Structure formats: structure tokens, C-alpha cells
């Protein structure tokens, strides 16, 4: 019979390595998607998947006091993604002052190959959205990605970011408003 997440987490804390492997199998695609949506490339998403689970393993003794494994996982993955974003920003700031401009070529190069099943129009819209998301501050961007793209609830995001749900609502509202404006401006130009 398939073990529940709390059962697996419990076994993992007690040193069962097969429980850890099963937790990886159940959550790896979610963490990959999150990393990809935040950072925009396969290589970065792969980095986020590996580092998130390595950090989870190293912090397994803390897991006993964790309420929800999934939100703890999101917290680790988003924190690491923000670190990568900051590193990338400071790297590109050193090499190129135009890094914050829309359509920055470095980010375009870092992106993976879009899903071949997507139509040309879908790809174009997705690319526009990604560029608009890149212009948002990290917390607004992450909230929009987690809620509107990955489908996490506001309470899950609040738990992951360790903040009140009102903060999530506010970040989401600002992110959506900015995205709509950015997309409208792009459409008009």
C-alpha cells in the first residue's frame, strides 16, 4: 500500500533512506516546475531540484517540528531560487548594465526549449509573461508563480513564506496589476 506523506516523512526522519527516495519521486516534478517557472531554464530547474533535496536531507532532524512537508519544501526551493536570481543579477550587473532591460538577451539564452506541443501563439504569450514576471520584485513574482501558475493556495504560500495570508493577497494583487500593465504596454508598443 502507498504510504502517506506524513508516514514517509516520519520514516525519513528515523533514517529510512528508501522513504527519502520516495519523497523525491513524489515531489521532484513540482520542485522542477517551480524552479523552471522562477528561473526560466532547465539547467537552473535541475539545480533547484538537486539542491532542495540535498538541503532537505541535511535538515531532516528539523522535519519533526515541520507542520507540512510540502510547504517546507517550497520554502527551501524558493529561498534557493531567490539566491540564484540574486547571484545572476549581480553577475549580469557586473558584465552588463542593460541587464534589467526587458528582453535581456542573457535571460533568453538561459531559457530552455519550450514544449513542442505549444502553438506559436502560446509560446509568444508565454515568453511575454516570463519577461514581465522577470521585472517583478522576488516576493511578488514568487507569489504570482506559486498561486497563479503552480496552483498553490494562499494559505500554503503564507505557510511557506512564514507570513500572514494578507501579505500573500497583497503581493498577489500588486503582481497581477503590474503584469496586466506590463502586458498591455507590450501589446501597445
Amino acid at each position: 500500500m502507498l504510504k502517506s506523506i506524513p508516514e514517509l516523512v516520519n520514516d525519513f526522519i528515523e533514517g529510512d533512506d528508501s522513504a527519502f527516495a520516495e519523497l523525491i519521486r513524489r515531489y521532484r516534478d513540482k520542485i522542477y516546475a517551480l524552479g523552471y517557472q522562477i528561473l526560466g531554464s532547465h539547467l537552473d530547474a535541475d539545480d533547484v531540484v538537486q539542491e532542495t533535496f540535498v538541503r532537505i536531507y541535511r535538515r531532516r532532524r528539523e522535519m519533526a517540528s515541520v507542520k507540512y512537508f510540502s510547504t517546507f519544501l517550497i520554502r527551501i526551493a524558493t529561498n534557493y531560487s531567490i539566491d540564484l536570481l540574486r547571484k545572476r543579477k549581480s553577475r549580469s550587473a557586473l558584465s552588463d548594465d542593460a541587464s534589467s532591460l526587458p528582453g535581456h538577451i542573457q535571460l533568453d539564452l538561459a531559457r530552455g526549449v519550450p514544449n513542442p506541443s505549444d502553438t506559436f501563439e502560446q509560446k509568444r504569450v508565454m515568453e511575454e509573461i516570463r519577461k514581465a514576471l522577470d521585472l517583478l520584485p522576488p516576493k511578488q513574482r514568487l507569489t504570482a508563480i506559486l498561486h497563479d501558475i503552480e496552483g498553490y493556495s494562499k494559505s500554503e504560500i503564507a505557510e511557506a513564506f512564514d507570513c500572514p495570508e494578507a501579505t500573500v493577497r497583497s503581493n498577489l494583487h500588486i503582481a497581477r496589476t503590474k503584469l496586466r500593465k506590463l502586458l498591455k504596454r507590450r501589446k501597445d508598443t
Partner: protein
Amino acid sequence: MTCSHFMALLDGFIDGEIETAISDEMQHHLRECNDCSNEYASALRLKKTLADMTVPDPGNEYWQETTDIIMARTVGADSSQPHNAETVSDKRAFVRSMLSLAASLLILFTAMLLGAGQDGQSILLNPPSAEVVHPSSINQDSVPMQQGVFAPTDDQTRLLRGTLLLASPGAPGLATAMARMGVGVNPTSDKK
């Protein structure tokens, strides 16, 4: 309902979090207000586009490989280093071998002194007028350490016997324990 009231509730409205009575009022406002209707359409379109944002599937081979890498970086890296329980037992082995080394040394010196007593000579020195030394009377006065540094052939044989005593069992045990505790060996570094 005013436009600003409608806009304040727009997020909750498109997320389906507004209670029915207020939601009905918003629907009513939408039918009457063009501006709010446009904002609502734009917000709904964005929400749908975001929900459709797909991620390329990296494939089963990638997942298998990545899971193996993660396991090697975590479980694999851990098992290549001694676990806590093993470290404790290694420490015990170390203490045991130190004790047995001390016991061997004690036996060696006793044997040397006893042997010297039987031959009527001290092994550590060779004074021409050395007295017969009884084990019970061994003390600093009867074994003057300062005199003589060279041991004659018979004494060398006794030294060799003593060395053999010394070597077993303390030294091999000590060497094994030190090796297991990683003394002089670089611990396995955590690979990225």
C-alpha cells in the same frame, strides 16, 4: 457598488473567494460598467494565461539520473563516512588498545627486570659490580638509570623478547583503531 469597491474585490472575485451575495452585486456592476468589465476581462485573461504556463517535460531518463545523483550526494555521501555508532565503537577500540599497550609496556619492563634479576645483571646498564636484584626490591636506587647505555648481546635478546611482548596485542589494535578513526586520513569531502 462603486468602481473602487469592485476593483478592491476583483482578485477575490476571479479566485472564487467572494460570498454569493456580494458576488451577485459584482455581476450586476459588470453589466452596467464598461471600465470594470474591461478590467475584469483582462484579469481573467491573465489568470488563464498564467495557469496555462507549461514546463517542458525533462523525461524519465532525466528523473532517474537526477534521483540517483541526489541519493549519491546525500545517502551515499553519508554512508562513506563513519556513522555515530561506529565512531563511538572506534573510540572504545582506541581506548582498549591504549590500555593494552600500557599493559604490554608494563609486562615488557617487568620481564626485562626479572630477566636481569635471574642473570644477576641489570639490562639497562652494565655496571661490573651489579648486585642480584629481587623483583620485590626493585627501586630507583638499585636501577641507576644514569649509568651505561649499551646493552650486551644477552640483554639484546631480552630486549627483542620484550619488543615482541610490546607489539602484541596493543600495537596492531592501536594501528587498526587509528586507521578506522581516520587518523592521518583525509575525511571524504562532500562533493557538489
